[in-house]
């Protein structure tokens, strides 16, 4: 299976371990990721707050690149994922906007490239089967909760992802690793997103509630599927006994025996995933 890959800006810097683990897991299960050549930033939370046309035009260029290659796109950042899905929706529903953007970018838009989050790609029955077969290092004794945040599930009429109040896609994938996946009430709560730049105190408050929720559920770590969520949960956590925040691909990779690679991923974490470290070195 071949699919276009749009890493997004964070995966080039603060979330390199996410980028590396997505690529490693994909390679292991036979999903060929082809990075879109010369991709541009999707505009994130800023473009739509400033100019509705810009908010569609920026992702439109990326969609056109994938289209020209005849590929669908996997987008690991939940914010980028939503921006690309929103753009697609507007281009489909608003012919005059589509025309304006085609003229400005000098290219036609056909709407043939579909956009997926890697959670969905790795949850395809055939891929899931491969993951199951590749698990050699069951993460027994590890208790986690899955955190989806906002942009995978909302707005549901744009993202078409999973149940917007109680998604389970990530929970099901994590169960394959042998970890105990706990249920909790903060799956789709907001981490404060971009406010981390200028109002860290707001983000600390929201992150504090989410982490507390995970602790009450009995979790030792939180699994995330977005570089912004992971960064906020990791960098805005306060107090002693801080909880490690994993990318779902890191745990999948570790369970599939990518121990050496995983050592490199853990080094990028500000909160040391001590529990997992032990599992990586001495599989039980």
């Amino acid at each position, binding site marked *: 299976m071949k699919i276009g890959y749009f890493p997004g*800006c*964070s995966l*080039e*810097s*603060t*979330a*390199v371990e996410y980028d590396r683990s997505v690529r490693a897991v994909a390679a292991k299960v036979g999903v060929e990721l082809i990075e879109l050549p*010369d*991709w*541009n*930033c999707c*505009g*994130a*939370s*800023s*473009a*739509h*707050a*400033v*100019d*509705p*046309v*810009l908010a569609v*035009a*920026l992702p439109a*260029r990326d969609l056109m690149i994938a289209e020209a290659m005849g590929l669908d796109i996997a987008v690991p950042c939940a914010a980028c994922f939503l921006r690309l899905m929103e753009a697609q929706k507007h281009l489909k529903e608003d012919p005059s906007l589509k025309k304006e953007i085609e003229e*400005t*970018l*000098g290219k036609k838009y056909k709407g043939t490239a579909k956009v997926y989050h890697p959670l969905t790609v790795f949850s395809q029955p055939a891929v899931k089967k491969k993951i199951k077969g590749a698990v050699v290092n069951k993460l027994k004794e590890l208790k986690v909760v899955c955190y989806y945040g*906002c*942009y995978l*599930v*909302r*707005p*549901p009429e744009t993202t078409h992802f999973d149940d*917007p109040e109680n998604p389970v896609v990530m929970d099901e994938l994590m169960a394959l690793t042998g970890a105990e996946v706990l249920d909790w009430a903060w799956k*789709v*709560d*907001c981490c*404060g*997103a*971009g*406010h981390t*730049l*200028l*109002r*860290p105190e*707001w983000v600390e*408050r*929201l992150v504090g509630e989410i982490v507390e929720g995970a602790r009450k559920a009995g979790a030792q770590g939180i699994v995330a599927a977005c570089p912004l969520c992971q960064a906020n949960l990791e*960098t805005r956590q306060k107090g002693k006994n801080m909880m490690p925040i994993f990318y779902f691909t890191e745990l999948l990779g570790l369970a599939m025996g990518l121990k050496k690679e995983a050592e490199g991923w853990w*080094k*990028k*974490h*500000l909160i040391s995933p001590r529990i997992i470290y032990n599992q990586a070195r001495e599989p039980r």
Partner: protein
Amino acid sequence: MKKKDSDFMRRVAEEVPEVNRCYQCLTCTLGCPLVFAMDLKPHEILKYVQLGDKEKVLKASTCWICASCETCATRCPNEIPIVKLMDLLRQEAVAEGVVTEQGPKVNDAFLAAIRNLGRVHELSLIIDLKRRTGGLFKIDPDEIRLGIGMFRHGKLKLLPIKIKETKTIKNLFSRLEKQK
């Protein structure tokens, strides 16, 4: 205020006609994660928009504190696109020059980065933002500790990446500016 109130109401009616459906059930406000920091709560914004009180809604901190998390819009029983309304308020407030929050500076820094390079280089973005908000030389020990931690763990890429087709991106920005 520069533009007439009726112009504002016309734009609301064109882009988010659904606001008229609001019956003040408070679902939006009850689920809003950032309501603790807002002066007007989301349902109050809806009410004042219905009443056409442009000054009140544009001067409120609400749209700058809103994180566009979409919780309100997803749960609103009347399917009012509340984030679309927030975007419109952000654009109108900037156009009217009545913003007291720092939100527009974040957007400006972000978009300037995209315009120049086609991608956002996180380290440059943070420095530019500190410069724009006058916080470059303010020393916050927590933030500095965090910066050092990120650096030590190799999470900050030092040099930006520039895409090849920056010309296309620049054209896009200037074309949109001309239309305004």
